[in-house]
């Protein structure tokens, strides 16, 4: 996501303040381009009409570069700023991000699941009701990136008549930067300090956000001084204050948690959030991006390396869990958003494209949605990227829109799936259940594809299918070295699998151990009633996987005291995954046909299994040849 940081530097001279004389103080006031509801949210965040909004701003993005270093410019604060600070003055329609431009404005435009919307709405209503019991007025919204957490909260809060006040983490100040400015006696405060301060103030919400304090501050400079003293970073303090006097309720939004590194910092952040949840006096919504198991996780973008995956899992997984625990212990309501379903995302994409005057085929939209794996932000942005420079029709030009699916129209305006695909580089990760489903249901290609010329067939299948993943896998299957196939009875053969199991494993980014455990747990339900033989061989291969895995953990340790417990090498994991191929082949196909599946399975899986076992033979002599022997025995 592209965030635009606008740096606002205010200079406060001592004569502006009523207190004891002070030296100059520099406050960095970050203001981040809001996520989806940008152009609607801004009227809430910053009211251009309000008199209080005369914050001094140096907008780096506007064409005033000379101001950047004019520190001693006299009273920048006196310039009335009528434009919202974070939207650059002159921006063409094309330059605007679609994620901002087409952000949802009404409840109907939200693509989030209805239940979640209703949950948030009911929470907001509950907060509006006069509070009889002193329950916590904190809401924790978690979910993967780009699933519409912030949009939902903002849209609904606006509909319910809330003013949104947002806490932004301040721009990072490096320690040496601080030293450089060191003559000024600004105390150095870390972001965590500031967040702690914010939490402490939130306890007494009505004091600083209430109507009296801010509204009474007629002079903008004084108002700023207040702000600076508190070292708080609340957007639109004046607006919030004034609207408060008009009877609006205000809602505090914590969208961007300060970065916490190291256990001590984490502990602090967690405890601060817990305190916030327990003590907040006005509605607070904490929005936390979560890296769940759902697969749409940026942190897990490298599923191929198990060590890397595990590392990311460790660091990314525990902190949200800790925070969730602490905040819910504080009495907060917890609403968890799921990653956006591909169909929903695709619909939203089509709608966006329509508004832009582009015609997006359903397949392309689905493609795009699939690759973003539940992240609508990413999907829209990649759509914009791939549409850059494409000819487009005006939205109002109805003839162009209604031209139908004629070939001419397609070539002019319709985006094909390829266009979308090429621009998209995000790794696809599959959730555990999708991995299991693909393996256990073990879909086969249509029998017609089993002709002599396989690549030809694959191509024709590609056209009929929109599933990019399946296509990629099929290409892999087509490349199988046919010379290594064992001769077999053609009557026992089966069409090749629709998916390449190893690629599925790769995309799943799961540890071989857990995949084996999951497969073991679920496998028997997929066996036909009389398929004991197949179940037996499937379990046999699971046993092989287990042996390989335990060797991968034990073997390095005999070499030295180097501790191998945490580093199962990737080749072993793959080997284990490779031996898992067989369970699926044998277990699954029994349900379908009840043919001899061991042999059928050998068809596609055998060469690949050899491939993945070869790198491992030197390091673990006893096991690998045995497994190969098993494989050959099974296929023979």
């Amino acid at each position, binding site marked *: 996501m592209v965030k635009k940081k606008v740096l606002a530097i205010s200079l406060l001279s001592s004569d502006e303040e009523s207190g004891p004389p002070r030296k100059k103080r520099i406050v960095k006031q970050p203001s981040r381009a809001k996520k989806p509801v940008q152009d609607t949210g801004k009227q809430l965040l910053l009211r251009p009409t309000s008199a209080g909004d005369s914050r001094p701003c140096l907008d780096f993005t506007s064409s005033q570069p000379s101001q950047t270093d004019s520190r001693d410019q006299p009273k920048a604060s006196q310039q009335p700023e009528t434009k919202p600070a974070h939207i650059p003055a002159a921006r063409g329609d094309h330059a605007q991000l679609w994620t901002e431009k087409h952000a949802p404005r009404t409840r109907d435009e939200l693509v989030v699941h209805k239940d979640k919307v209703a949950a948030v709405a009911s929470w907001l209503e509950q907060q509006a009701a006069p509070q009889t019991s002193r329950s916590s007025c904190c809401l924790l919204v978690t979910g993967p990136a780009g699933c519409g957490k912030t949009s939902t909260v903002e849209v609904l809060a606006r509909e319910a008549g809330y003013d949104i006040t947002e806490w932004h983490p301040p721009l990072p100040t490096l320690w040496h930067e601080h030293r450089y400015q060191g003559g000024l006696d600004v105390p150095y405060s870390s972001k965590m300090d500031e967040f702690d301060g914010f939490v402490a103030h939130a306890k007494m919400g009505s004091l600083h956000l209430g109507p009296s304090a801010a509204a009474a501050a007629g002079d903008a400079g004084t108002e700023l001084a207040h702000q600076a003293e508190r070292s708080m970073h609340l957007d639109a303090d004046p607006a919030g204050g004034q609207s408060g006097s008009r009877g609006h309720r205000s809602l505090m939004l914590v969208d961007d948690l300060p970065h916490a590194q190291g256990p001590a910092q984490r502990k602090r952040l967690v405890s601060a959030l817990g305190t916030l949840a327990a003590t907040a006096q006005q509605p607070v919504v904490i929005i936390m991006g979560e890296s769940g198991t759902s697969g749409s996780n940026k942190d897990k973008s490298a599923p191929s390396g198990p060590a890397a995956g595990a590392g990311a899992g460790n660091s990314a997984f525990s902190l949200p869990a800790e925070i969730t625990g602490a905040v819910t212990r504080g009495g907060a309501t917890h609403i968890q958003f799921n990653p956006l379903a591909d169909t929903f995302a695709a619909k939203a994409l089509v709608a966006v494209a329509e508004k832009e005057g582009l015609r997006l085929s359903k397949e392309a939209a689905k493609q795009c949605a699939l690759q973003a794996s539940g992240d609508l932000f990413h999907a829209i942005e990649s759509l914009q990227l791939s549409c850059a420079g494409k000819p487009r029709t005006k939205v109002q030009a109805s003839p162009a829109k209604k031209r139908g699916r004629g070939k001419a129209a397609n070539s002019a305006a319709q985006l094909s799936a390829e266009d979308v695909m090429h621009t998209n580089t995000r790794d696809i990760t599959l959730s555990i259940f999708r991995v299991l489903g693909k393996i256990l249901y073990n879909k086969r290609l249509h029998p017609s594809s089993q002709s002599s010329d396989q690549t030809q067939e694959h191509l024709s299948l590609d056209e009929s299918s929109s599933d990019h993943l399946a296509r990629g896998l099929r290409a892999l299957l087509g490349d199988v070295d046919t010379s290594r196939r064992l001769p077999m009875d053609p009557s026992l053969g089966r069409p090749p699998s629709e998916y390449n199991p190893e690629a599925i494993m790769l995309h799943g980014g799961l540890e071989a151990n857990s995949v084996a455990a999951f497969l073991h747990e679920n496998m028997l339900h997929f066996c036909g009633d009389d398929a*004991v033989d197949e*179940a037996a061989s499937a379990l046999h291969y699971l046993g092989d996987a287990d042996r390989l895995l335990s060797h991968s953990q034990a073997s390095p340790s005999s070499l030295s005291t180097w501790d191998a417990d945490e580093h199962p090498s990737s080749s072993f994991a793959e080997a284990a995954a490779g031996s898992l191929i067989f369970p699926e082949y044998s277990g699954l196909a029994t349900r379908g046909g009840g043919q001899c599946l061991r042999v059928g399975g050998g068809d596609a899986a055998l060469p690949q299994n050899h491939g993945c076992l070869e790198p491992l033979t030197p390091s673990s002599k006893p096991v690998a040849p045995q497994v190969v022997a098993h494989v050959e025995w099974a296929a023979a």
Partner: protein
Amino acid sequence: MLWIDKYRPKRLDKLILNQEIGDNLSKLVATGDCPHTLFYGPPGAGKKTLIVALLREIYGAGAEKIKVETKPWKIALPSRNIEVELTTLSSNYHVEMNPSDVGYQDRYVVQEIIKEMAKSRPLDMKGQRGFKVLVLNEVDRLSKEAQASLRRTMEKYSAACRLVMSCTNVSRVIEPVRSRCLCVRVAAPSTAEVQRMLAHVAKKESLSLPDSLSLRVAQASERNLRRALLMLETCRVAQYPFTPDQPVQLADWELYIQEIASDIMQEQSPKRLFQVRGKLYELLVNCLPPTLILRKLVLELLKKLDEEVQHTALALAAQYEHRMQEGQKAIYHLEAFVAKFMSEYKQWSIMAFG
């Protein structure tokens, strides 16, 4: 106090079973030194009794004053520090521990803790022996790495320390360790011997034990003296005076495994396999060792099988037990055995009965 503890012989010359071994051991101690020893034999044969009696023979009554200690050991490795919690039983003269309790970290226990203990010589206490004894139980459950480091420890610190080890399956102890020890086989008592012990205990408790009951208890115990005594005590609690036809209570896990065996024999299908899986899990969560489950299960199955299939069943059991040793998750292998057996049995019964 349970009878098994109450009537455990304390001294080598008071042994009732394994008298011969006891004599040899006391002769050995009388020479003034004692090699590393490895006692092996099935459970309930008297290994532990021998070890305790041997310690008493070496050090006198002082070896019976035992304190139990559980403490975390901090072990510094090159890359990180780990903490291992280990329970030790110790007297002034010996330390007893079960290093396989810590699972895959057992090699650190051997490398660090045992080395640490073995290194320090005992203070010379008024003409006592110049060595102390480390008693290690269940050495066969140690990983290969741990056993390999054990071998080094045995050589290096033999001046100050003797290892006395016990295990049930000597073939799981690596050859170098075995060759550095005096290996003592402690055979399971015969049924007659078990009966003799039962009569001995009954006499001491002044109970009248009918011969037929004692025979049935001895048979049900499968020549495991500990179990026999426990069963006798259970019978005593259930009903006294004893009647000759009194039922002998089997352990519930045995009944459960019998149930599994009959399940397997009734139907051979993935659905049934799934039910069996549930029962196997039940046994595993109750901390029954997987090898024991497999063994018992095969024995139960063998009772119900034709001779022809018995061979297959045994071969399969051997294969899957071996695989279980190599792997880590026993359930895969147990279940694979059951599935494979089902499949073989089904084929056989189709062939035999059409």
